[in-house]
């Protein structure tokens, strides 16, 4: 395997992302150009789970998400470069203050059952998310809307946050003018006449049950579904854009990890997305009829330290740990080079991340001497116990790890070698089931503050906007049980910076703010991103025009993909 | 002559019923295994008990040695009522009363050697301490019972049936009892061995001054060993007298039938054989009146209704039949 930097595929993908152009017209131009292509062909996609909740408001597995994304429409969408392209809406505008967004919807758009898509459907969809009895997980999309709290608490049936001005004009009004508001207007449009039938204000039970017969206005309709076996999607002939989504049939097939490569190579499936295994990658590369897309992961595996309690509350300790954590070794050996190290909290696809910036920020390159020096300077000296001590306290870390975790199985021995063996830190490694770790660090975190020093998890980021990523994880208001600031990082200055940055409406203007935030976090060693690996999509060469990246997954890529037999 | 005899055991109206479940919602039924039996045994005598299979011989024997607690009635052993003794007091009784079992195979623990089988109870009752004295005592008893000293280290499977029965007798004798219930001790043995055991039991009786309650279904054997004989039918004693009287002048029709049915080992005395018809009725729903009336060739109406009294018709000759002596 070779080093990360030399990986040509990687470079190319990144480059494209930066070079992308803006503008909605672009899209249409493209479409005209490719209009010659006809709808046809079949793609069989291997997935490891087929459960069958295709209700946009309630589904939770990413596999169900594929189906929802393909069968439902949003007002607008991101293209591969992260620019907005229109879907159900023809046009949109933001008011002066920035707290109101108006969409003008296409008047010739129909659900798969033939009913017209109107502004009322959009309003209804948001009301569903805000309903007092709503038990799904997408409430946060609506909770910034004006009047959400009153509506969701059941105080009033009036919801000024989203209003249909006429049949085809819908207005979103937010409590605050924030840049991130726009992303919250793109929830899937659910037909009121279908899902609304089963619902009253305060009683959404009926809607939860409408899960296996989705009706949307998206490019596909559900043709057949056999749980644990397959989901079959057929091109929706009424879909408003005739020149997009040209593949006629998409079949999601259950595959088993043991045999998925075999399935791909024998043609039982045409597409395996999000692969990371170096051996599989080599196999796929060697296969004649298989093409590969590769792209850096939007997200990373990270180690978070307890910034509130114990030795890791001390910045020096965290830095020392960071310096003595041989990330390069891990990435090159474990991922055979199909991964990067990363020293900032954002997705590599985020607009806040620029090459120059990445090069400029401090990197914690492996440096054991430096680490020792930092600890020595911070008065952590090796004591009688053979471990470092300060004021009679041992430097002892309680590390939460998970069983059956390939990566941890490699990381733990490294820590034991470097932190335990070289730095003389007393490592206490405990293994817990994923769910109990979540209990400790999230759901019941207040009670467990003193139980841990660090843990390892991974995250996937699906947004181009960097705000959500840092706000949730590092804003002090998110410390506490059930909240996302699991490292319990509290920095009032940074809180303020984040709040300010969210109000910057213009992306370009916001970039420096987020870069500064990132730098502070890195300097503070608030957490340690470990790797950002490269994802691969393997697909049969018959699929052409199939472009994917970290945030633009295979589902999104179906937009332009075609079959060429 | 009767008064010279010292009673050792008195059984008065003893009943032993076993509950058998009939079903969840039904009243439990009772097996009347022993149904109102009375008799007296004297010191130094052997009382034989005969009857067909299932008539309650073993149950009676086991009730007497208090393996079972009688449902009703009294058992008086050497003047003490032992019918409802607590398990603690029973322990003392155990030294004086013993039981010899029928099956030479299942009556010995296959995982113990003769030494333990015979000696264990002596230790439990603290008759001797473990040591040379104990060893000697075991050897002594074993030799008395016709086994050799070197047999004490062997395990039951290394013995033949007759030898095993000797071990069983030795085990019972080890506690030095006065009274032994022998429950068909020779039924499982071959003829040539049976006589060995019978002879041994007879000689031990004299040597140790024992009294036997000797249970058997073989009238010839009982006759050989007993002084007096009781005949049981369906849980009750129907006749009890000394052996001469019983064989020569049986009073109860059942006894007669039984005697007539025995094939004698003498081809010159060919019997007609079929003495009575039918089989023993169930002891759950016993026949009314005289229990034998269903098979009795002399049955009259009264037999169906009235239970005949177990009376001393002639001196020392008890019988339970309305027409005893007349038929």
């Amino acid at each position, binding site marked *: 395997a070779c080093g990360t930097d030399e990986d040509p595929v990687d470079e190319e993908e990144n480059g494209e992302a930066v070079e992308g152009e803006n503008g909605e017209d672009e899209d249409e131009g493209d479409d005209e150009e490719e209009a010659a292509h006809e709808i046809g062909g079949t793609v*069989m996609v291997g997935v490891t789970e087929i459960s069958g*909740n295709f209700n946009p408001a309630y589904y939770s597995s990413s596999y169900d998400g594929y189906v929802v994304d393909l069968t439902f429409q949003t007002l607008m969408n991101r293209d591969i470069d992260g620019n907005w392209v229109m879907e159900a809406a023809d046009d949109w505008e933001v008011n002066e203050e920035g707290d109101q967004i108006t969409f003008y919807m296409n008047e010739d758009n129909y659900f798969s059952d033939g009913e017209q898509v109107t502004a009322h459907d959009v309003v209804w969809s948001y009301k569903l998310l805000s309903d007092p009895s709503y038990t799904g997980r997408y409430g946060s999309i609506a909770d910034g809307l004006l009047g959400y709290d009153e509506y969701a608490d059941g105080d009033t049936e009036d919801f000024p946050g989203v209003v249909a001005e006429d049949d085809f004009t819908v207005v979103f009004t937010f409590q605050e003018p924030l840049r991130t508001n726009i992303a919250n207007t793109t929830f899937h449009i659910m037909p009121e006449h279908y899902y609304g039938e089963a619902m009253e204000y305060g009683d959404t039970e009926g809607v939860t049950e409408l899960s296996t017969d989705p009706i949307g206005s998206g490019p596909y309709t559900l043709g057949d579904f056999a749980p644990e076996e397959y989901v079959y999607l057929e091109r929706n002939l009424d879909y408003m854009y005739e020149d997009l989504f040209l593949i006629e049939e998409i079949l999601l097939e259950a595959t088993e990890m043991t045999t998925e490569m075999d399935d791909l190579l024998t043609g039982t499936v045409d597409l395996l997305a999000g692969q990371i295994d170096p051996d599989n990658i080599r196999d796929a590369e060697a296969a004649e009829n298989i093409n590969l897309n590769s792209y850096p992961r939007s997200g990373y595996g990270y180690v978070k330290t307890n910034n509130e309690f114990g030795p890791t509350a001390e910045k020096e300790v965290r830095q020392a740990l960071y310096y003595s954590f041989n990330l390069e070794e891990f990435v090159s050996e474990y991922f055979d080079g199909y991964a990067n190290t990363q020293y900032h909290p954002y997705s590599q696809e985020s607009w806040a991340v620029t090459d120059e910036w990445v090069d400029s920020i401090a990197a914690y390159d492996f440096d054991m001497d430096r680490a020792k020096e930092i600890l020595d300077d911070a008065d952590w000296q090796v004591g009688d116990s053979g471990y470092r001590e300060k004021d009679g306290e041992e430097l002892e870390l309680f590390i939460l790890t998970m069983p059956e975790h390939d990566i941890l199985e490699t990381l733990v021995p490294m820590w034991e070698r470097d932190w335990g063996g070289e730095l003389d830190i007393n490592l206490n490694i405990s293994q817990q089931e994923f769910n109990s770790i979540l209990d400790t660090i999230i759901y019941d975190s207040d009670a467990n503050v003193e139980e841990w020093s660090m843990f390892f998890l991974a995250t996937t980021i699906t947004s181009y906007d960097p705000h959500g990523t840092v706000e949730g994880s590092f804003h002090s208001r998110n410390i506490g049980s059930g909240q996302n600031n699991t490292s319990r990082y509290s920095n009032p200055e940074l809180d303020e910076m984040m709040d300010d940055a969210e109000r910057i409406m213009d992306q370009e203007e916001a970039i420096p703010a987020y870069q500064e935030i990132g730098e502070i976090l890195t300097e503070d060693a608030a957490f340690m991103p470990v790797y950002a690996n490269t994802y691969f999509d393997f697909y049969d060469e018959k699929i052409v025009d199939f472009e994917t990246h970290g945030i633009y997954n295979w589902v999104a890529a179906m937009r332009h993909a075609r079959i060429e037999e | 002559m009767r008064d010279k005899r010292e009673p050792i055991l008195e059984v008065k109206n003893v009943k032993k019923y076993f509950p058998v479940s009939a079903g969840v919602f039904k009243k439990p039924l009772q097996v009347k295994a022993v149904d109102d039996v009375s008799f007296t045994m004297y010191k130094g005598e052997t009382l034989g008990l005969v009857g067909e299979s299932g008539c309650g011989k073993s149950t009676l024997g086991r009730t007497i040695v208090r393996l079972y607690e009688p449902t009703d009635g009294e058992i008086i052993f050497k003047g003490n009522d032992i019918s409802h003794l607590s398990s603690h007091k029973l322990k003392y009784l155990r030294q004086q009363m013993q039981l010899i079992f029928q099956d030479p195979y299942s009556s010995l623990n296959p995982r113990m050697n003769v030494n333990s089988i015979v000696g264990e109870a002596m230790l439990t009752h603290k008759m001797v301490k473990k040591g040379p004295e104990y060893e000697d005592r075991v050897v002594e008893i074993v030799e008395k019972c016709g086994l050799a000293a070197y047999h004490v280290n062997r395990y039951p499977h290394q013995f033949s049936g007759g030898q095993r029965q000797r071990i069983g007798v030795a085990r019972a004798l080890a506690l030095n009892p006065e009274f032994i219930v022998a429950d068909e001790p020779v039924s499982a043995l071959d003829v040539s061995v049976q006589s060995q055991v019978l002879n041994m039991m007879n000689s031990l009786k004299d040597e140790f001054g024992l009294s036997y309650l000797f249970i058997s279904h073989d009238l010839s054997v009982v006759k050989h060993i007993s002084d007096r004989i009781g005949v049981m039918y369906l849980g009750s004693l129907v006749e009890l007298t000394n052996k001469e009287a019983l064989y020569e002048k049986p009073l109860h029709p059942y006894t007669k039938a039984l005697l007539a049915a025995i094939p004698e080992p003498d081809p010159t005395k060919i019997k007609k054989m079929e003495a009575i018809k039918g089989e023993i009725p169930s002891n759950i729903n016993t026949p009314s009146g005289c229990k034998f009336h269903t098979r009795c060739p002399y049955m009259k109406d009264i037999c169906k209704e009235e239970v005949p009294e177990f009376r001393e018709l002639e001196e020392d000759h008890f019988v339970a039949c309305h027409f005893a002596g007349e038929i």
Partner: protein
Amino acid sequence: MLRFLGKRLLQLIPTLLIISMLIFIVLDFMPGDPVQAYLGQGSEVSPERQEQIREQLGLDRPLPIQYFNWLGRVLTGDLGRTNIYNADVSEVIFGFIWNSFLLNIFALIFALLIAIPVGIKSAVKKYGLFDNFFTVFSLTGVSMPTFFFALILIFLFARNIEWIPLNGMRTSIMAVRGYDSLWQNIVDVGRHMLLPVLVLTMTSLATLTRYTRNSVIEVINQDYIRTARSKGLKEKVVIYKHAFRNALLPLITILGMWVPALFGGAILLETVFLWPGIGRVLLNGITSQDLSLVMATLVFYALLRVIGNLLADVSYGLADPRVRVK
């Protein structure tokens, strides 16, 4: 007969109640928060909202109340809803049960078809070459982890024999487009069943052969077999009529316990072979903490077991005149 059945069915109730209670208690020990599990991993739902959901799902009540609520619903035929499949649990279970049945029934039939003659033959020619072969065979059979056997088969067949599919229940694309004929449908499913049924049959075969053999051996030494022979009956008649009818009795009991065990054992195979059966539902339920689903699946397995025993008892009663129930 009816009364006997009625009584036995009545006896099932406390058993099932206690089992369901045990399961309920065990499930309560599952780490992690059921609300979180309900919402799915990584959802960003505010703590207050989560409390509301907890209330709505009745998870804030004490355990006994939750149990009785569950029981009450079950008695009205409502097994609750599953989160992962977002459907009525009963629907999901019934959807998958048949697939499991399909697999197990075939395995069972094949196993019996082979095990009975083989077992009898082994018993008749005790310690012969045939018997010894099958002794070794069944010993290996019971000593081999089923999933390992399955993996080895897949390993051997992968990329080697194309017409044997490695997993799944049918060729999805054919199923989606509709089979041309019933025959084609049968052939397709049959091909997919090949490996799992092979594995299941082999493992059951091992045990069943042994049972048949031992129970025939037991019977063959009985006096009435000698009687039958002394009548001049052909050896075949002696064995297959007189001996086998009696040997069947213990076999019935075994089958009563075997069938449910087979279902349980098939969980591993369903996982390996991606067979859309009830076992996968259970495993999915466990990993995603879908309690009502797990609960219902387990109760289904328990029911299967209890009914298996009941059926064994009843058929035993029918087959054995000594305990024949009126």
